């Protein structure tokens, strides 16, 4: 069981402010890993570095054995690193199933010229995409909303649509940016259950989250960062009782008894 994602000595400065400070972490296959830390600890900068939106000053990132530190975002995604967004980025002008089918774009092989005259192959590929999307919609029981326009759906269903769309690129690992944000407790439970199903289907998960009961209920391994640097790592139970972590979260006034 090798590691799927390896970040070593990653640093990123924004004109003086050190957003990510010599961070190293490893995400093992078949192990749900969560990155936690107080607000402004550098979590979203880390995601942007991993997904290629930002380029690190130093350090390397490897995913599924390949060095992706200098790779553009769409190439990293093509390697199988899916992601969801904190503030759900969907294609408003399209229906749910169309959103998902955009996800399948990278897996299709037909070029534009072939598409124009080879109508049979075009039709087959379209059907294949549609079937794949419907199968995933059934998996996340969103099939009934197949043709609804995305911007007319409630928040919870939009989150599910985004998850479904990420699944469409057959990811090896999905990077979830604060999945629990904006969900009420019952929606949260349901969403976590779906995440577990996704994990069971063989896809690794790497969460960025600061809602502790979500973290505790799903994570196998936790890394804690504060001011861009790693301050603790390990099993959820160990990490929660680690005085450094408590101090970082609750501030120095609450000394560990």
């Amino acid at each position, binding site marked *: 069981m090798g590691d799927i994602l390896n970040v070593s000595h990653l640093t990123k400065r924004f004109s003086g402010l050190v957003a990510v400070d010599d961070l190293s972490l490893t995400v093992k296959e078949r192990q749900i890993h969560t990155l936690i830390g107080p607000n402004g600890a550098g979590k979203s900068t880390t995601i942007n570095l991993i997904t290629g939106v930002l380029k690190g000053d130093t350090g390397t990132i490897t995913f599924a054995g390949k060095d992706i530190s200098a790779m553009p975002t769409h190439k990293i995604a093509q390697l199988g690193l899916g992601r969801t967004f904190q503030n759900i980025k969907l294609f*408003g002008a399209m229906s749910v199933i169309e959103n998902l*089918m955009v996800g399948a774009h990278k897996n299709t092989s037909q070029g534009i010229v072939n598409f124009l005259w080879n109508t049979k192959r075009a039709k087959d590929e379209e059907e294949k995409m549609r079937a794949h999307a419907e199968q995933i919609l059934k998996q996340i029981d969103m099939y009934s909303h197949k043709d609804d326009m995305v911007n007319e759906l409630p928040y919870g269903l939009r989150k599910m649509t985004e998850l479904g769309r990420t699944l469409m690129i057959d990811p090896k690992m999905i990077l979830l940016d604060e999945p629990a944000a904006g969900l009420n407790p019952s929606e949260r439970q349901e969403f976590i259950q779906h995440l577990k199903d996704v994990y069971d289907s063989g896809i690794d998960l790497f969460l960025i989250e600061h809602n502790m009961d979500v973290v505790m209920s799903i994570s196998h391994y936790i890394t804690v960062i504060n001011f861009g640097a790693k301050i603790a790592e390990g099993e959820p139970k160990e990490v929660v009782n680690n005085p450094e972590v408590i101090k970082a979260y609750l501030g120095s006034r609450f000394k560990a008894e």
Partner: protein
Amino acid sequence: MKSRKNIISIVCLIAAVILPWLFNSTYYLSLFGQTLINIIIVFGLNFITGLTRNMNLGTAGIMAVGAYTSALLSTRLGLSPWIGLVAAILVGFLIGRGLGYPSLRISGVYLSLTTIAFGEIVRLVLNNTTSVTGGAQGLTNVPVFSIFGIQIQRGIPFYYFLLLFMLLMFWLSTRIVRSKWGRAFKAISDNPDAAESLGIDIAKIKILAFTLAAIYAALGGALYGNLMGYLNPSTFNFDFSINFVIMLMIGGIGIVRGNIIGAIVVTMLPELLRFLGDYYQLVFYTIAFIGAIKLPQGWPAGIASLAKWIARKTGLKSRKEG
């Protein structure tokens, strides 16, 4: 529901087929020919300005290059207009890629300035390379197409030729818009970050949109040369490019069927308003202006929602009485 839509399409097709027999003076035939060519060009423009929301105000420039490439090949080198068409496609492909790259770095107003500058440069170059393009004197007797030796005369035969061409391009662009390509165009304009996170290479898709549009425009240019029989650089000016965007807006941005309606309305309207004498340009631009502000979703959709609104109003009243 599906069958009703097909009936309407068939009705339109029949209308298009019997049209030249109803109005067969050269004036109407040339007008219908111009409309069909405008429809083809607006199909292309729909990919850039319609789906990827990039503003292209240089369509006339692309059309001019396509027209002159095809016309010069057939008049100077005596090649058949069919080779001219293929050459226009190639030229359109090259321009598409050329114009596509700026759209990666800049967008919105800046991109529109680039396309305007491109259009002006093309017109100036064509106007002043007199030895090659005939310059301001223009290029005369551009030949007509012939299939297996039979010449397609300008007039009714050429109208049907253009009609077939338009239907082919309509079929292609409907297929593209309804396919993964159409979705990709909409995706990168709606939310580029999300599209990138799904493995879509935004640069490739943007350039594809520009290339498709440029090929449609160059093809339209070549056909325009054959329809008119005479080309002059002064025709392809800034106003020409604007008209295509007006057609797109009136028909409804991103709607392929809307492109057809937009092109018909904008090409026919000035001729319809001729009876206004001196004022018809002012009236035409005022209508287009009000349309731009009040009916951004396009006139058909605007009228449809108006119809629904009236239906709801009248429906409400009748329910109250009933």
